[in-house]
């Protein structure tokens, strides 16, 4: 089994029988990316480990509902998403209005030409510290935008899979990733790292 293919029926049966080797295989394949995503979503080291354990416990409890049509990874990341919302109490967040949209719009004139062009961030983006700076800026992203950004840009998942995990449409994903990038760019520009 690879992390990106649907699990075989035999493997699922072994998991349902709670065979230790099957459970160990699932943990070895998926715990690390789940933990990394949890850290990317702003959880501290010990919180992330606790969260990943919680994901696997829920996974085992609900294994009978998993039909094996999607990837195990998609199912597990979906559980991580719901656990994140529970812990962040963010399920009721309304993403329809976001002030970052106005900030983006204000960069263009009525004809769609740049009035405030993207600053030259080359020096910052190619610097050794960029990982730390981006992690710091990610702290300012609302949870849904942060999830979309982490799954796409950090974990490199495809749009279809992210939409399944977050239970959103491709259009909604476009809005979230657009706002996440816009917010990160504003944050990077505010750091004043522009080329003199």
């Amino acid at each position, binding site marked *: 089994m690879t992390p990106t293919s649907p699990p075989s029926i035999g493997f699922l049966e072994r998991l349902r029988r709670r065979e*230790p080797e099957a*459970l*160990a295989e699932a*943990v*070895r394949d998926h*715990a*690390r990316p789940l*933990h*990394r995503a949890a*850290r*990317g979503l702003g959880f501290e*080291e010990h919180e*992330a*480990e606790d969260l*990943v*354990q919680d994901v*696997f*416990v829920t996974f*085992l409890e609900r294994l009978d509902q998993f039909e094996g049509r999607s990837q195990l990874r998609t199912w597990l990341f979906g559980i991580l998403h719901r656990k994140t919302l529970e812990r962040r109490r963010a399920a009721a967040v309304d993403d329809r209005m976001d002030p970052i949209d106005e900030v*983006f719009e204000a*960069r*263009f004139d009525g*004809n*769609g*030409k*740049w009035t405030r*062009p*993207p600053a*030259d*961030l*080359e020096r910052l*983006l*190619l610097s050794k510290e*960029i*990982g*730390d*700076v*981006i*992690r710091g800026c*990610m702290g300012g992203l609302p949870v849904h935008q942060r999830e979309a*950004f*982490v799954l*796409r*840009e*950090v974990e*490199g998942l495809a*749009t279809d899979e992210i939409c399944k995990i977050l239970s959103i449409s*491709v259009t909604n*994903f*476009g*809005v979230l*990733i*657009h706002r996440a*990038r*816009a917010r*990160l*760019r504003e944050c*990077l520009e505010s750091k004043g790292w522009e080329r003199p």
Partner: protein
Amino acid sequence: MISCKNVAKLLMSDQLETQTTWKRMEVRLHLAMCRLCSRLARQIEQLRSGARESRIHSEPDPELEERLIRRLSGR
């Protein structure tokens, strides 16, 4: 001719691949001619590389999987 604002929106929202062939060509042509939009496109790529770089600092310790397996096996 497609505007800078529309090009920026398509790039930032990852919606370029869902566009028609003609629209994608129009965007590529715009990027070839517009220094500011091509800067934005380059920055989106660099932001991605930087974000992947950040995950190096988020890697759990090597014992994570074994600890989880021990705890989950006891359930």
